[in-house]
């Protein structure tokens, strides 16, 4: 089904506008003098869940940060919902409907849980209401007046996710959301991701935990040394396991 969507999107331009949410072409990114990304090309369709796999330092997080214009310099093209964003100031990018959940979670210690939750401005209509969020993450409701960083790691991760669900963003960039969390919480996060996918949100997931990502994703991009070395659809996973093992050492 996924392949069909892809083919359809390539067949006609009109269709393309409707389905293609993110298209990155020849993206190079730099931190100061270091050249981190060497010409990334990737594309994510509406409603897809795509992962970026690779070892630490392969450029997966930098790819997400480049999309948010959080790196020193970037060249190439990043189209979000049909808008060119290279050259756009960082604060305008979120308003195209992008929600970013950083690797370090980015919970603000000088804000309480509810202030953290309410911090990002609404970027599109149709985001979750505070009630819906508290329903999805009951722990956050109980601790809504606590200092943000007093939460457990798992709760902080829930908060970092919930925060961008409230804004109505329909393209979520999630960086290592399962890192360092207990299996029970990882499982909950997996359920949350499936719910979000059902709602039609588009998700780009940077993930170390391949077993977590594999059953959720439609496609995988495999990264190495700041380039994409392979694109794998979920139905090709079996046959390409050897390749994955070589690159990831799983």
């Amino acid at each position, binding site marked *: 089904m996924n392949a069909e969507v892809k083919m359809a999107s390539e067949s006609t331009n009109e269709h393309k506008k409707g389905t293609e949410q993110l298209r990155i072409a020849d993206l190079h990114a730099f931190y100061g003098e270091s050249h981190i990304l060497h010409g990334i090309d990737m594309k994510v369709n509406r409603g897809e869940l795509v992962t970026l796999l690779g070892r630490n330092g392969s450029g997966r997080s930098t790819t997400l940060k480049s999309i*948010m214009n959080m790196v020193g310099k970037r060249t190439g093209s990043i189209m979000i919902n049909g808008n060119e964003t290279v050259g756009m*100031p960082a*604060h*305008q990018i979120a308003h195209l409907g992008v929600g970013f959940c950083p690797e370090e979670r980015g919970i*603000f210690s000088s804000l309480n849980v509810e202030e953290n939750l*309410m*911090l*990002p*401005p609404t970027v599109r209509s149709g985001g979750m209401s505070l009630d819906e969020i508290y329903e999805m993450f009951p722990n956050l409701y109980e601790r809504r007046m606590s200092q943000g960083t007093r939460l457990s790691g798992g709760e902080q991760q829930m908060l970092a996710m919930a925060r961008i669900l409230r804004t109505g963003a329909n393209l979520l960039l999630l960086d290592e959301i399962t890192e360092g969390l207990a299996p029970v919480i990882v499982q909950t996060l997996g359920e949350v991701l499936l719910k979000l996918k059902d709602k039609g949100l588009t998700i780009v997931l940077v993930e170390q935990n391949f077993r977590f990502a594999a059953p959720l994703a439609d496609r995988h991009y495999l990264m190495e040394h700041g380039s994409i070395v392979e694109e794998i659809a979920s139905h090709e996973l079996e046959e390409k396991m050897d390749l994955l093992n070589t690159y990831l050492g799983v």
Partner: protein
Amino acid sequence: MAELLGFPPQVLFGQLLIGLINGSFYALLSLGLAIIFGLLNIINFAHGAQYMLGAFVAWLGLNFLGVNYWVSLLLAPLVVAAIGIALEKTMLRRLYKEDHLYGLLLTFGLALIIEGSFIHFFGVSGQPYSVPQALTGGNNLGFMFLPTYRAWIIVASLIICFGTWYMIERTKLGSYLRAGTENPQLLQAFGINVPLLITLTYGYGVALAAFAGVLAAPIYSVSPVMGSNLLIVVFAVVVIGGMGSIMGAIVTGLLMGLIEGLTKVFYPEASTTVIFLVMIIVLLVRPAGLFGKEA
């Protein structure tokens, strides 16, 4: 009359009042410094000059344009904030990624230039600015005489200080400021125009200094060096309170004014150094300051 701790109450309360007034200025000025340092990472050495500018805008307004005190209290902070915003947009903006030292040097240089030019035109001897009609006179409280204008300084600065505290700690706008102080890059990725927030914050910090300058005009003479005399103490207050702490700046400001006042009664020789002694002790015991977060 009965004595209090071996001193006539008039002396004791008189000095406490002076201490509280000085403390009000310390609080207003260190609050502005704390806000600016928090978000911009700039140690604003021009703060004293901006305080002085506030007083001079009021004085020039009164003497050349007939602008009265009450209008100046609103207008001077706006004028000085506008100058500050221009400064931020043209110069300070280039330094955020550099070491603190560059911002400090730039603002210190600017302070010298501003003060130097005012000395050139107005000399160092102060210009008088009369107390507005509505605030002349005073009340005898029994144990001391309280001039109305001095009471007004304390009330006005408390309102502004705690209003600012409320805005930062309890409102949505304040949550942007707090988040921006912690992680400006992520705040911007959420869609907040952080460069604009920074510009406005600098403008607000500078406006606080100018407001303090207008408040000070009728009781201290309006002089080009009025700010640099005060600023060194204010920096000590910021360090004692904890760099970047809002409540710390306010409370420490008032407290240091009172301590200074009390020292004037009990051991006048130490009154100009006592704040620095406190600073040394606080730095030894709590390096992050009284209200600072331990790193």
